[in-house]
């Protein structure tokens, strides 16, 4: 009847309805939020694909990438998660697709130094590429 319709349409009923609806909050540390596959998260470097050309170092707007040595003498790839803007420009500009942004979004640390990741170019993989 009329009153029921007016009452139903009014905000009072909407609020009561919400008592049976499951809350929309995700209880973060216990429930994880799933993220689309092409999410721009933590950076991943493929040592064997990288030829040490250094384009990524020049292109990066936040100056977050450094290479120890260039070309053949490449020893390590240093990535500072603190100053990285996760824009993905390095992924785009890398000629060998040696860099990728993974969907992992929990890049946390207690201090800025811990945010700097250093990945060695292990000799074994270097010989592997050298041999083939």
């Amino acid at each position, binding site marked *: 009847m009329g009153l029921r319709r007016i009452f139903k*349409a009014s905000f009072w009923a909407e609020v009561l309805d919400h008592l049976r609806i499951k809350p929309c909050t995700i209880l973060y540390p216990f429930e994880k939020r799933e993220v689309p596959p092409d*999410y721009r998260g933590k950076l991943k470097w493929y040592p064997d694909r990288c030829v040490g050309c250094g384009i990524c170092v020049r292109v*990066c707007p936040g100056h977050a990438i450094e290479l120890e040595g260039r070309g053949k003498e490449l020893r390590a790839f240093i990535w500072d998660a603190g100053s990285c803007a*996760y*824009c993905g420009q390095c992924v785009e500009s890398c000629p060998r697709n040696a860099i990728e942004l993974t969907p992992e979004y929990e890049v946390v640390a207690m201090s800025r130094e811990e945010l700097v990741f250093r990945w060695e170019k292990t000799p074994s993989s270097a010989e592997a590429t050298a041999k083939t």
Partner: protein
Amino acid sequence: MSAPTTMEVPVGPQHPALKEPIRLTLYIDGEYVVRVKPRIGYVHRAIEKAFEQRNYIQNLYLAERVCGICSHSHIFCYSQCLDRLLEKPAPPRGEYIRLIVAELERIHSHLLWLGVAFHEIGFDTLWYYVWRDREVVMDLLELVSGNRVNYAMSTVGGARRDIDNLKADKIRKGMNVLEERTKYYLDVCIKDIVSGTSVRRRTEGVAILKTRDAIELGAVGPTARASNVKRDIRADDKYSAYAECWERSGVDVIVWETCDLWARVAVRVLEVIQSIQLIRDALDHMPSGPYRHPLPPVLRIPENEAISMVEAPRGELIHHIRSDGTDRPYRHKVRSPTLGNILPVCKMLEGVYIADVPIAFAGIDPCISCTDRVLHLIDVGRREPRDLGVFNIFELRHWARKRCGGSR
């Protein structure tokens, strides 16, 4: 009775309710604000100087971070400006993707503002509801661009990622949900007897900006449209994909006559529905083909000058670049929409209850950062101005009433 003196009341740069680092010096007369003098610059990051230190590609991501909420508008305007400098327009599919992400961002920005407006007037339930529904569009943006805030979807010569059919269907589903929810909020605000009137009672007739003032003071975006000024860059300039989408989807510039805070609420809610129609139209008529031109490793732009304007959620945004043949811009001028609304908001605040200053100021959806509420009262009434110490804006109203013998 002595003539009521006008008191200079600076509302300082940090403010628990206002979200913008602007300091408004209110000249109050008893109960009401008589004149307002703005002072900005508290978060000026010399972005224009920084633009000149980086090359065009790196500037893409700096332009995106000029503003947190309307980041796509800035990168869209900047890449469109670069396309005009190179005189090489982006492929149609790229333009359509830029349009879709721009409209998604407008929905997210307007819903964010709607939630904050409800919080300002103390209606937290609607704030939670509006921000819960905003998650739908945030998830879509994350799905499309890989990030919730800085989408980096537009670049020189088109878009950086494609929107395939799978994502298009998800967007359509999301749009249906959003349309239904937004229409519900409008109904609650208009028709609902108890809660609706409580919202309208706090917004109707507050902070009036007449049409003539809006034009003379250069109001932009929803603030202007809420004062009956039919100004919308998407309709006027018909830039990028709006040339086709605007007529085909049959939308028109949303204008409201009452020129007050309620008009700004209504305009923004109706614009969300308008954006939904635009997105649906763009998705249905998405041209095939490439969505971007290949990016040269080092981008050098010959000597040229270009202006590019975009309708950001808060108003018109302009990027003006002059290039000199190198890979760095010679001069890059950015005018964010909120700067255009500073003078109108000062005009708007005249004659407003002091208690309504925070809500009236939030009406233009300022996008700078936070302002302060504790005031520094300088009593200009006496012969030598005496510093009366720190007072609260309401304390002023009470104190002023005593001095002027009853509120007017």
